[in-house]
């Protein structure tokens, strides 16, 4: 199991347990984390599961592949730490991962 910490825009923190193999988006949806819409259900086709990966975890989570980078064009307020959470696979190495939820998904 890996713990993932979701931080809302207002600073509210939620820690959820995620099983390796699932995606960060799935962990969020399963635990009803507000702000992760995941309209397309994880097909990397909508950009409504946009998160900002905490700087300390950016290396561990890697960089977006081209399809994800393309899809990020549809997100709002994209930053260098932006990722689509449906494209981050949970591993034991990501235990303690911190991601912030943007103010708006669109």
């Amino acid at each position, binding site marked *: 199991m890996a713990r993932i910490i979701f931080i809302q825009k207002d600073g509210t923190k939620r820690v959820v347990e995620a099983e390796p193999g699932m995606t960060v988006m799935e962990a969020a949806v399963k635990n009803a984390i507000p702000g992760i819409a995941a*309209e*397309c259900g994880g*097909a990397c*086709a*909508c*950009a409504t599961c946009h998160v900002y990966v905490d700087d300390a975890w950016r290396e561990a989570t890697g960089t977006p592949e081209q399809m994800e*980078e*393309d899809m*990020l*064009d*549809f997100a*709002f*307020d*994209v930053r260098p730490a932006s990722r689509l959470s449906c494209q981050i696979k949970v591993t034991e190495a990501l235990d303690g991962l911190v991601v912030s939820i943007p*103010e*708006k998904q*669109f």
Partner: protein
Amino acid sequence: MSEHVIKTDAVIVGAGPVALFAVFELGLVDIKAHVIDILDRPGGQCTELYPEKPIYDVPGLTVVTGQELTDRLMDQIKPFGAEFHFNQRVDTLERLDGGYRLTTDAGTILECKVVVIAAGGGSFTPKRPPLPGIEQYEGTSVFYSVRKVENFKDRDVLIVGGGDSALDWALNLQPIAKSLTLLHRRAEFRAAPASVQKMLDLAEQGAINFKLGQVTELHGESGKLDSVTVKGPDGATFEQPTEVMLPFFGLTMKLGPVADWGLNLEENLIPVDTAKFETSEKGIFAIGDINTYPGKLKLILSGFHEAALMAQQAHKYVYPDKKLIFQYTTSSSSLQKKLGVK
């Protein structure tokens, strides 16, 4: 102008996989259907959102892509000669004596005995950037599509986005606009390489102003845009003066006009019974992702089942005097004749 009215048995709203299979099930019971969809081709979400993504839970097909499933369904329903009306959204539904009249935003008018709403998550509409106050500029300074090119003549135009729509309109409006600025968050594009090259050439010549960044604020008064604040890739902001902004951020699904048809709704879904998949109104059915009932699963296979049961009830409205005898396609010569295999 005289009104041309198409008269038919059934109108299916939506052209996703469940809508397509509804053509099949209705066809087996001799109900002729017209299909209307806002997109330019069949398949709905399957072809719009994930044409190349594998689907693993369609019975009998170990793995199938959204596009392939759509192609197979189109082939399967060919014998029933459904007529398709693409690039149109059904806007209004009126009650007639013994039927319904639907009118699309393209002016197509259809009269039918039954309506099958198979509109999935709703109709695809352009995404509205969540910029504070953007509503006040919509239709005057902010546009999500180009209806009339003339409207942009001699104006300062800002196009935002990096896909084909953004690039195509940048190239098309550049010759008539007073100035054309293309704003994208990065130097890579999702558009056709030829369009990108053409745009870069025009930028080189100074005919297009290509900038990197994302819009964060809009400035103007009473629906008239004066400028936007842009955050550049380095995090620094600058002001970009413009009269018009065209944001192209893809499509999202909205329930749309269905909400105003006088049907009972539960959180943007249409409640139905699980024997006939009929809405709160007799003769109007809802199948697939757009409906809700106890235990509902948003699966393509559930929608197929719903289509089959819907057709049984629809038959009662289209042929009130005929008794429907349940038959199998495997053994019924009359069904096989309809399918064109006998």
